[in-house]
């Protein structure tokens, strides 16, 4: 599904990604871990197509297409979804309106019939149960005045409605209390399917107790320095990142 080869990227002239190689197959869940500043979020943003992040080298193939040539909206329409670490507030635009516009843009792109108001509302109500979201949040402006937990849940709701092929969760666990974490993880797990893949970007192992990854990669200084199965996450939790730093420096 996703193939990243030797990806280099700059932010503000500074190289952050220094040659990432990563393959994510359909149906897999990959966790990307690493200390602060290692480039985790940059990778997520580059995949989503944020223009402040300049790709200098390498390629990304998504379902046979050259992802880097696509506009951010086309990447989304191709099935890439980024759950933002800091979801932005958009006063005046209701959640419902955003979701309806988004789903129909994606359907249009994929030559599917647009949903009418009734069909959409039926779908939306179903998905809201997944993330245990209160109906009142729907008519409110996107993330406007939402608590940290509500914002993250809102991201997962959007993911549930848009049914992306590849979901990238960028530190979705940060700022969540244990209940919110459970709800968010639950939502993600219920959306898991053999034809969808997930990349979970996280700082802590905690989230991986709920969303169990098939593979764990450790990002350090713009490169993946270690890959393994879910046991690697536990090892990291126990030993800390310094353990890897030392290993790396010796290597």
């Amino acid at each position, binding site marked *: 599904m996703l193939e990243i080869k030797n990806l280099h990227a700059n932010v503000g002239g500074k190289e952050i990604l220094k040659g990432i190689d990563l393959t994510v197959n359909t149906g897999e869940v990959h966790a990307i871990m690493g200390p602060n500043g290692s480039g985790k979020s940059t990778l997520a943003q580059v995949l*989503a*197509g*944020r*223009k402040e992040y300049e790709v200098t080298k390498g390629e990304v193939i998504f379902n046979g297409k050259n992802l880097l040539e696509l*506009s*951010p*909206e086309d*990447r*989304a*329409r191709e099935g890439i*979804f*980024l759950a*933002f670490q800091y*979801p*932005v507030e*958009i*006063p*005046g*635009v*209701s959640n419902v*309106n*955003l979701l309806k*516009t*988004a*789903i129909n*843009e*994606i359907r249009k*792109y994929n030559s599917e019939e647009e949903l009418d108001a009734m069909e959409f509302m039926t779908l939306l109500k179903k998905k809201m149960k997944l993330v245990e979201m209160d109906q009142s949040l729907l008519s409110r*402006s996107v993330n406007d005045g939402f608590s940290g937990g509500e914002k993250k849940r809102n991201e997962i709701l*959007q993911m549930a409605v*848009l049914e992306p092929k590849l979901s990238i969760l960028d530190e979705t666990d940060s700022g969540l209390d244990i209940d919110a974490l459970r709800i968010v993880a639950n939502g993600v797990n219920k959306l898991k399917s053999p034809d969808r893949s997930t990349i979970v970007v996280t700082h802590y192992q905690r989230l991986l107790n709920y969303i169990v990854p098939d593979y764990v990669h450790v990002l350090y200084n713009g490169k993946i320095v270690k890959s393994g199965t879910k046991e690697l996450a536990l090892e990291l939790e126990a030993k800390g990142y310094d353990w890897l730093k030392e290993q790396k420096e010796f290597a």
Partner: protein
Amino acid sequence: MSTEVSQIEELANKEYKYGFVSNVEAETFPKGLNEDIIRRLSAVKEEPEFMLEWRLKAYRHWLTLKEPNWANVHFDPIDYQDISYYSAPKKKPKLNSLDEADPELIKTYQKLGISLEEQKIFTGVAVDAVFDSVSVATTFKEKLSELGIIFCSMSEAIKNHPDLVKQYLGSVVPYTDNYYASLNSAVFSDGSFAYIPKGVRCPMELSTYFRINAANTGQFERTLIIADEGAYVSYLEGCTAPMRDENQLHAAVVELVALDNATVKYSTVQNWYPGDKNGKGGIYNFVTKRGMCKGVNSKISWTQVETGSAITWKYPSCLLIGDNSIGEFYSVAVTNNYQQADTGTKMIHMGKNTRSTIVSKGISAGKSNNSYRGQVKIIRKADNARNFSQCDSLLIGDKCGAHTFPYLEINNPTAQMEHEATTSKIGDDQIFYLNQRGISREDAVNLIVNGYCKEVFKELPMEFAVEAQKLLSVSLEGSVG
């Protein structure tokens, strides 16, 4: 817009070409303004003596005035002697098909969702009437006259209802009011007149769309709407289709009168030619609009969506004279490229327990300048007056300007005032967020802008609101990116 409406409109336009104008001599006055020109104008229009007197008084007063320069707009001086003050309504040049029309214009029409038939009308393509024109127009007029509602051109009103005109014309905007209003009073060509009798609720939105022989806006338009005791009327002015006009200066006057327990709702969508991308050409729209809540419990509500004109100078206002009367102003003003807008309202509280609401949403893009200028005045006798003002500015890009000039004058300690103001910018992070949800840049801006204008759009009649949304997106096209 539904085909039904477009057909009616088509008829209205057709009627205009062959209707009342036929008795007016097809001539154009030489350029220049003097008393002779005004006499000739009044004569051509076969006006009663009192009208001529009034025009002359206005003209003499105008001569004593200086063009105002306090507005936050800039333009080269206007030579008032270089304007012809009367020309018989011209027939639009006839085209054989839409292929001959300006392709840019057609593209805009398509984006606005204007039907093919309407496109033909706007561009002057000959249209075959789909059904009997006279019958629809007549049915509409009959329905109104059954209720005693008068809805006609100002010229007709002067001839057929001189008493009403004499009583109310200039009663809200006197000919001494301001430079442009004085000029308008002296030389106004035509406009709309509506009178809703006591206790009558006008069953349909009155619109220049429907009013036979009023499809074209004159350079100096004059509108007078009177709602008698307990009456209700909703009036729609303008049109979302871009209006081109060879006259650069437009100085209209609109007067609204609401007697006891009456309500007047006045909605405008203005989309006159704003000039090209470099600010060349474009219409100067210097309008005086004012409503008088004369009676107790009366209400006047202005809603405007302003996207056109090179320069807009416009302050729809309310004089709240009757006790418990209500004034409202809801505005969306969009400026793009080099457009300049100085617009707002005045709420003058004179009666007891009067209330006013101001919601102004300015949107600036390109290199434009958008100013809100509003006055709330509460006189000494106006006990328990209340005002709520909200003035928001939205900036798109970093070369435009937004300015707010609120004036408050409160002479009664029981007054309650609330004022909220915000300035926001469409952030790149907001756009990216929406992009990431599959929404294009243009659509993202539209979504944000429409959300921002929601409070005003909901005041518009349904159909108008839908058109206004599309209009906004067309107006802001290319402003981001």
